[in-house]
């Protein structure tokens, strides 16, 4: 029950007028960028990183958390009304949600997704509050070898297990490693990968990487795809109030979605794709209205995945706050915000920065309340945002991209790096390479290297530390299974399917 005391203290931090204003600003901005295609929470938080030089850590993390949660709410609106999933996590919402909107039940779809997000977000945030202290107890026993192995596991899951191809995911991750290593090596003071340029001694700023990959790359991609079919906004019809039948069909999927989403999000694997798809499959199986799936749109198929999405978003905060382990691009950029304050997220964070962590968790509860209000009664406002025409939207994104990049050091070199990364981002988008592992590799790679070198220094250069510690060995084994397992399984399946064809030939 210690947690409740901490939470009460957290609310006293979050309920100050200034912090409430930051929360309101964050949630509003988050909803807006969630609604707008082409803008996401990772890019927005990266652009706002300079704020960490101006305000207290509590204020900026309450702002960032509001943006993070808000983007989840806003993203579902776009999925339902435009059928263009703003983020990969809302692909499933678009499946049924857009069908519902087309058959005149858009209001109910928006309502079940907003209320479901609220329910699951609140459950997920409660999960963070109660699970974080438990994880910390375990994490205190971690040495550098265990940390390194845990990071290896996270690298494998975010790049190789999730996503469409492990080779392309790992390529993105390794590209992130290279970008992360540019600059002066902190332990020996040697410059690395600078190509003799003094501008690169400080390394590539995460703002430039995020803006280049997400803003410039995305704009180039959208320009190149102008011939592709355009999605039309489905006008919002139907009451925003759900009927009692719709409530009855929604509440169980919300709870099931939260129960699926939070644990998967909290694992060092992260990712919202798996829980949302899992929730969709389960709801489709359990539903009494199977005929509505894929035809007129089933409300269960919106309620469950939306809940799973928000609960897993909350879950991602557990490894981030307790282990310093980001498993999404947004979490990685939030980690760099911690670094900019000189704070190291890890097991000690909850005790040394109690005000910050518990204030942040409390503000997430408040953000959920604000968001359900912003996204239901005020939904008309956000629908209007969807009508911003593409030319001005993308041109505007580039203007803000320039401000964020050029503002770092007023150096045109930064713009050159931005454009190079933008070109890389375009190619990655065009040829189906995931971009999030680049950001994660760039932020987490140097941390993994530090732990690796620390472990090797303690063991006096003996590699066996990584497999003689049981916990470290377990984590590395899991990582290996994650990397090789799916391929072996696919091979076995392949053989099994081909088997019967070959038998007649042999006979």
């Amino acid at each position, binding site marked *: 029950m210690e947690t409740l005391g901490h939470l009460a203290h957290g609310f006293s931090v979050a309920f100050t007028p200034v912090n409430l204003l930051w929360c309101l600003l964050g949630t509003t901005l988050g909803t807006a960028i969630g609604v707008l295609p082409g803008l996401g929470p990772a890019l927005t938080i990266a652009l706002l990183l300079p704020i960490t030089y101006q305000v207290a850590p509590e204020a900026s993390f309450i702002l960032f958390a509001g943006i993070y949660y808000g983007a989840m709410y806003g993203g579902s609106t776009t999925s339902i009304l435009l059928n263009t999933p703003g983020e990969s996590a809302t692909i499933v919402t678009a499946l049924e949600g857009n069908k519902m909107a087309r058959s005149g039940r858009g209001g109910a779809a928006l309502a079940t997704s907003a209320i479901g997000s609220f329910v699951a977000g609140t459950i997920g945030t409660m999960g963070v509050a109660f699970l974080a202290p438990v994880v910390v107890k375990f994490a205190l026993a971690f040495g550098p070898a265990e940390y390194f192995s845990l990071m290896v596991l996270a690298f494998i899951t975010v790049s190789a297990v999730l996503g469409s191809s492990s080779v392309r995911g*790992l390529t993105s991750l390794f590209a992130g490693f290279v970008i992360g290593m540019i600059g002066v090596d902190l332990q020996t003071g040697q410059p690395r990968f600078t190509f003799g340029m003094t501008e690169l001694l400080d390394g590539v700023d995460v703002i430039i990487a995020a803006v280049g990959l997400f803003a410039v790359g995305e704009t180039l991609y959208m320009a190149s795809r102008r011939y592709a079919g355009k999605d039309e906004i489905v006008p919002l019809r139907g009451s925003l109030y759900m009927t009692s039948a719709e409530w009855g069909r929604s509440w169980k999927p919300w709870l099931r979605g939260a129960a699926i989403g939070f644990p998967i999000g909290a694992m060092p694997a992260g990712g919202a794709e798996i829980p949302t798809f899992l929730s969709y499959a389960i709801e489709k199986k359990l539903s009494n209205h199977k005929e509505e799936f894929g035809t007129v749109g089933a409300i269960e198929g919106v309620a469950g995945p939306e809940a799973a999405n928000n609960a897993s978003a909350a879950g991602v905060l557990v490894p981030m706050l307790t282990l310093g382990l980001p498993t999404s691009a947004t979490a990685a950029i939030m980690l760099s915000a911690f670094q900019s304050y000189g704070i190291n997220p890890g097991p000690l964070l909850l005790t040394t920065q109690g005000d910050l962590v518990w204030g942040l968790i409390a503000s997430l509860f408040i953000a959920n309340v604000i968001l359900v209000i912003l996204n239901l009664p005020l939904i008309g406002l956000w629908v209007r945002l969807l009508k911003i025409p593409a030319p001005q939207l993308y041109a505007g994104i580039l203007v803000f991209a320039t401000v964020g990049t050029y503002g770092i050091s007023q150096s045109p070199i930064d*713009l050159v790096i931005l454009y190079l990364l933008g070109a890389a981002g375009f190619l990655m988008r065009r*040829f189906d390479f995931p971009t999030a592992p680049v950001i994660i590799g760039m932020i987490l790679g140097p941390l993994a290297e530090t732990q690796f070198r620390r472990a090797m220094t303690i063991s006096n250069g003996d590699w066996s530390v990584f497999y003689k510690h049981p916990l470290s060995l377990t984590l590395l084994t899991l990582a290996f299974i994650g990397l090789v397992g799916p391929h072996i399984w696919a091979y076995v399946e392949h053989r099994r399917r081909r088997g019967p064809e070959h038998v007649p030939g042999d006979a």
Partner: protein
Amino acid sequence: MSSSDQQAAPSRLAVPELLIGVGLLACAGAVAWQTLAIPVSPLYSKVGPTVFPYLTMVGLVVLSLLLILAALRGGWQPEEEKETPTDWRAMGFVVIGLVANLLLIQPLGFTAASVIMFVLVCYGFGSKRTLRDVGLGLILALAAYFGFARALGVNIGAGFIENQLNTVIDAIIGTFGA
């Protein structure tokens, strides 16, 4: 012609994907070159600053070989990506806008350079009302400039537009402050 039959098999080679694989291999080469350039102090001979770069290089080489192999087997592009033609004209205008911004941001200042980029990108995306875009770009660039420069305390390149406005704003603040 029998050669056309033979060409059916090699045509599975996916050229864009192959270029990506080869490009990545070149990147791995650059990583190797830069790693060799890192001076290593004998004090850190066990796990010095070059161990991770070497690991990364090996990883990149393996991955680029796997990508080249995938390209030789027909590539991995989804059908819909292949079928949609690339709009080179729109992309060209976006690139021109970006380069113009890069070249003009120092001589003209952030706002003027941004307006030019905004108009070019809008035009590339198919906007026909250029004059309106100039106005919109100006409003947006000024909002971005003052939002960042004044609120976030970030110093971004001021040109003649910003300097004029800053003088006006300071004058107004001065009048009201006095």
